């Protein structure tokens, strides 16, 4: 115990406190690391939409941090009925079953309709045009086979730490999926 007139050198006392705090900090970090390492996933996550939960609220088109949403419509042709009267393609009461823009549900005319053989038509999404609004998805799910659905496209998605659509998704349909299984595709009949 130093006497009152001879205080221990403040510098060394401070250094001592500092090392103490440093060791405490290291211990804390180590403990945290140990605790978290047990739970840490080996792989990173990416965001994806569970098509079963999506309610086609339209926020995918508006709430992505990217100006052009990273969410696009995806078509699983194996489920598609190839209907002449595609309820994902046509407005509820189309003037005619042709490719006239006024008949189409899609605001950007992103669905390409092609005659295959009587009576089947093929529908393909042009991802350059699709804005991920989900209008076609709604039509297809409500009245058709549900072969159209929305997915986060990973060539566009910048994989935000917190997806800004996920926060506002009306269907609570976004979730983190392992990077090696980055899609939640509908498969077949």
């Amino acid at each position, binding site marked *: 115990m130093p006497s009152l007139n001879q205080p221990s050198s403040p510098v060394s006392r401070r250094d001592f406190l500092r090392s103490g705090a440093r060791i405490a900090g290291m211990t804390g970090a180590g403990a945290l690391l140990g605790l978290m390492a047990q739970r840490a996933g080996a792989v*990173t*996550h990416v965001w994806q939409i569970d098509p079963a939960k999506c*309610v086609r609220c339209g926020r995918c088109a508006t709430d992505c941090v990217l100006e052009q949403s990273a969410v696009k419509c995806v078509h699983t042709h194996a489920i598609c009925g190839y209907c002449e009267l595609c309820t994902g393609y046509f407005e509820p009461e189309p003037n005619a079953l042709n490719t006239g823009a006024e008949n189409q549900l899609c605001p950007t005319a992103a669905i390409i309709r092609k005659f295959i053989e009587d009576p089947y038509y093929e529908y393909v999404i042009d991802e350059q045009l699709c804005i991920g609004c989900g209008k076609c998805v709604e039509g297809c799910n409500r009245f058709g086979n549900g072969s159209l659905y929305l997915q986060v496209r990973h060539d566009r998605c910048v994989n935000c730490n917190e997806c800004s659509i996920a*926060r506002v998704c*009306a269907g609570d349909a976004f979730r983190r999926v392992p990077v090696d299984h*980055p899609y939640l595709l509908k498969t077949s009949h």
Partner: protein
Amino acid sequence: MRARGLFIWIWLLLGLGATVFAAERRFPPPEFETDYVMPVAATPEPRSAAMQYVDLAVLAGGLGLATWLALRRRSRKGLIGLSIFSLVYFGFYRAGCICAIGAPQNVALGLFDNGYAIPFTALAFFILPLAVALFAGRTFCAAVCPHGALQDLILIRPVKVPAWLEAGLGLFPYFFLGAGLLFAATGATFLFCRYDPFVPLFRMNGSFLMVGLGLGLLVLGMFVGRPYCRFVCPYGALLRMAAAVSRWRIRITPNYCTQCRLCEESCPYGAIREPVNLPSTPQALAPDRRRMGRLLVLLPALILATAWLGSRLATPFSKLHPKVALAEAYHAPDRPAAPPPVATPDSLALARADRDPDGLLAEAVAIRKRFRIGGWLFGGWIGLVLGVRLMALSLRPARNDFEPDRSACLACGRCYTYCPNERVRLGLLAPEALPLPPATLAQPPKA
């Protein structure tokens, strides 16, 4: 028109079907007679998982290099070079994600949400810069963090921020840190990511508001050194605490300080502190000691008071959690009984709530309970920060030299060449031109 009639017929039938409950796959798959081949949906791959090892290696390498450049090489040029690289790699190429600033949130969520396995990259981005700061100060800020690098490179005409303002604004990062951890741990939202001003610039894409904020901060940053780092960055608050006890530190002079005062104004971040002579008798310190003692006694009361205030904030805070917000909207007295004719996102969310209102309510209640606990902790943290800052006012750090403050110094290396001793070391000045060290203060060169 045949098609039209058929259409209406189907429409009616299916419309009825759809109201019962959306059963998909209503039509059988076609049996093609031609040799038509079905297209398969493309699944463009995300950035490969292996690339995260590259990120980690760049981070570790960058930290090592920055530390060496700042502490050993004492090279501002080298740090500028590394800053440009980090800005390009972590900023523009990696588009700002994952970054150390956001990582504490992943850690908080990982700790409190069993369903969330934190990616080890996020864990490493959280721990590595902090571990380095415990030993070598904030060399991460110097040249590895893309946010720091961007602001450092655009600083052209620094103005001095008055000390009182600096001290006041400097508290905000601690508050922000506390709030961000609270919202992340409760699974509500990632505040640091949401209000990150520079990531939209790195992506050259984003909402008008955030891009505008980023640009505004950049313009401000041309005159006020690193405004985000000093007055906002929550990870900076963590680094400050770590750097405060660092083993090694930035010293302006390579050997000893002659108190020539040439470096006094060199730091654009207000980190340089003047020498303080301790009073010769310990008695002179008595008033400080008494004040310190009083504060120490008051500290628990302060913490308790702010903690209580924090717990009051739990209810409003919890509304930022989407589940709580939905449960509130669902149980709101003025909720419209019937959904609107044209569905809106909100009405769709309410319809979802309607499928399991009790489950949702239970979840919301559980979340709010977590917010209550979190609110106490958050409030207590605020009190602690305030209390410690007050106590720091009555501490008299003994300093013989002009020295950077450990916590505030961003290790940018600007001050080095202001020191004549450094100029001698670099061969820019003849040793004879040196002012003589004041006899009373001469320090032997540190080994």
